[in-house]
């Protein structure tokens, strides 16, 4: 089985052909075509940019438990359409992914779907209850080789439990991805950013400080234990300050930002539309600007979608009662390009959306340099296209898309996963 990707601009620079044989890149360059075995399929990539397949550190696939909102298959389809070749499936399913068996089930469903690598995230604590450690080691030693652990949706609030998790995960190179939200400071009904908008709208807010105190505590715990900590979906300028300081101290901390936190602001809540209800909440412009700056200067390591599909009826409640979260996989690349138009070239995009997330998650087959010998995970993008997002056109089972009607820069044209074309001309192959 072989595939010739013709005429793509690698990382947006030199144009070359890529020959893929048996799922791996066999040759790159002008003479790649001459080495193609007979019967090689051709993928026209004229005018397109080639990137290593995108890697999402933070995806909610809802299976098991809420297959009406998303399944591993439909989530994989959405990922492929968005240019992804690997996603990390968060543990807050029903039941929770807190055992090796549960992790293996998700991993196998991913293999059956066959569109992206679905790498399960293991829970840090049993049932996400924040009290007892889940079987981190058994999950790590299973065939699913879990490396990222997170109680996402909930913060590991008990400092002692967090300390133990950080220490314990060192034995197998694991990393804890923390949903940083002090539940006491934020309050039980917090549903948006605390500030002028929440004050006017009469919505219970949670302030940036409730994120910052946990980030500050966790980097100190990581320093103390000599462990690796990953801050999920960082959202406040104050957290960035803390992370910048921690990195300067040599503390082993990485962090991610979501595409939506790079553009959308808390002002969008004035209509009480639950499509904009997300956790952490949309913050004011000052935070958005600080996040972009931190992504540009490398303080923020990666972009992660926090793709959070919800059935329609779970969003059609009063704002405080509606579910948190928004779709993200299909639009992420366009949003990041739109937000980072001035700062980023294609190598930067590849760094924050593929190479670094792959490294953080320990996915060695992903985030490569598009060089011979590497697994053939390739995303091909039309850099000049603009797309007006239509939520009805999504392949996700859900429709909670905050980008509906937005015009985004660039378009994922083809996605190649392990040498197999999963998306062709923007549609599932």
């Amino acid at each position, binding site marked *: 089985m072989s595939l010739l990707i013709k005429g793509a601009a690698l990382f947006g620079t030199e144009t070359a052909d890529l020959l893929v044989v048996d799922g791996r890149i066999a040759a790159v360059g002008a003479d790649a075509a001459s080495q193609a075995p007979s019967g090689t399929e051709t993928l026209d990539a004229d005018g397109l940019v080639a990137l290593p397949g995108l890697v999402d550190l933070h995806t909610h696939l809802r299976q098991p438990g809420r297959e009406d909102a998303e399944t591993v298959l439909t989530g994989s389809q959405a990922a492929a359409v968005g240019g992804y070749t690997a996603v990390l499936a968060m543990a807050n399913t029903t039941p929770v992914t807190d055992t090796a068996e549960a992790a293996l089930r998700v991993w196998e469903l991913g293999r059956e779907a066959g569109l992206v690598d679905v790498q399960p995230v293991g829970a840090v604590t049993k049932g996400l209850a924040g009290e007892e450690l889940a079987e981190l080691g058994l999950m790590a030693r299973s065939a699913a080789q879990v490396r990222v652990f997170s109680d996402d949706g909930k913060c590991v609030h008990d400092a002692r439990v967090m300390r133990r998790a950080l220490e314990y995960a060192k034995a197998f190179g694991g990393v804890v991805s923390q949903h940083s939200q002090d539940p006491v400071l934020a309050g039980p009904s917090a549903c948006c950013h*605390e*500030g*002028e*908008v*929440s*004050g*006017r*709208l*009469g*919505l*219970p*807010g949670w*302030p940036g400080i409730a994120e910052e105190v946990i980030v500050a505590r966790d980097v100190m715990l990581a320093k103390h234990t000599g462990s690796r900590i990953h801050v999920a979906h960082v959202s406040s300028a104050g957290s960035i300050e803390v992370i910048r300081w921690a990195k300067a101290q040599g503390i082993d901390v990485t962090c991610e930002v979501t595409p939506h936190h790079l553009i959308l602001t808390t002002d969008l809540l004035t*209509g*009480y*539309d639950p499509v904009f209800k997300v956790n952490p909440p949309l913050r004011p412009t000052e935070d958005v600007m600080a996040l972009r700056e931190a992504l540009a200067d490398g303080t923020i390591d990666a972009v992660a979608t926090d793709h959070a599909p919800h059935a329609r*009826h*779970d969003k*059609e*409640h*009063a*704002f*405080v*009662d509606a579910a948190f979260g928004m779709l993200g996989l299909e639009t992420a690349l366009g949003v990041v390009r739109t937000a980072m138009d001035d700062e980023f070239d294609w190598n930067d995009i590849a760094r924050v959306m593929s190479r670094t997330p792959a490294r953080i998650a320990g996915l060695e087959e992903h985030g490569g340099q598009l060089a011979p010998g590497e697994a053939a995970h390739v995303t091909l993008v039309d850099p000049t296209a603009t797309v007006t997002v239509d939520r009805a056109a999504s392949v996700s089972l859900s429709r909670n898309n905050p980008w509906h009607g937005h015009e985004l820069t660039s378009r994922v044209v083809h996605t190649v996963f392990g040498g197999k074309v999963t998306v062709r001309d923007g549609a599932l192959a």
Partner: protein
Amino acid sequence: MKHLLSIDDLSVDQIQEIFATASDMHDVQRRSVKKLPALRGVTVVNMFFEDSTRTRSSFEIAGKWLSADVINISAKGSSTSKGESLRDTVMTVCAMGVDGLVIRHQASGAAQQVAGWVDASVVNAGDGMHEHPTQALLDAYTLQRRLGSLEGRHVAVIGDLTHSRVFRSNVQCLTKLGAEVTVVAPPTLMPSGVGPWSESAGFATSYDVDEVLPTADAVMMLRVQRERMSGGYFPTAREYTVGYGLTRDRLAALHPDVPICHPGPMNRGLEIAADAADAAQSAILDQVSAGLAVRMAVLYHLLAGEESSA
């Protein structure tokens, strides 16, 4: 005017128009036969997701005196109960043919969301901590009758501002009508972002009741919910009363022409001393009868004649 969701929806002219109609309705209340035929054949549903006997009765009587068919639905708890969304609940009721929907909900923004889903005219009868526009209209109407005009008059609004929809609607309504407004609360009960908000909306803030009262032309006390004490917003009821209550001493220092308002129900002895509630200058019972008149006026403007079909 299709809905009344927020004071923000109303121009000064519209507010004065409602007041003029309310004044006529006030006269009707003094008649022996109180029925007007204005809303004959019109169905109004009072949909209350949160208990409030006084607001619900006020809307119910207002509707009935205008000859509307009024139906009360207590929808308490059903919005968050599993399976049915708020949209499902409301659409089911509206599918029966409803012209006016008076909605009270414990969640901020609920009335605005509902208005986006249904064909009926929606009146916000209180949504969480957000707004209570008819309360603000009846308060301003009451004060305007007492003071002649609100232009340049200083109104002190005192109490738990953070959790108060009455405050949020009133501050808009009073400033719109030209009043100077100072809101007073302990820092823990000031809404987040009140600094920039008060600047853009043109009201003043203070932590000190005794500094504000001497220049007040009207005093509006807000209800303090006793459960706020367990939330750590202030240490004890006693301390709250000393700091922010309209006590007997503060009443004695107040000019006898200064009207005292309270949206009710009152915590006598906590935010308002019994003497103050029952004082000759108290406008609290006026507020209740004004409430009826203003709600009749609002229902009339939304549902009667050409405006409702426009």
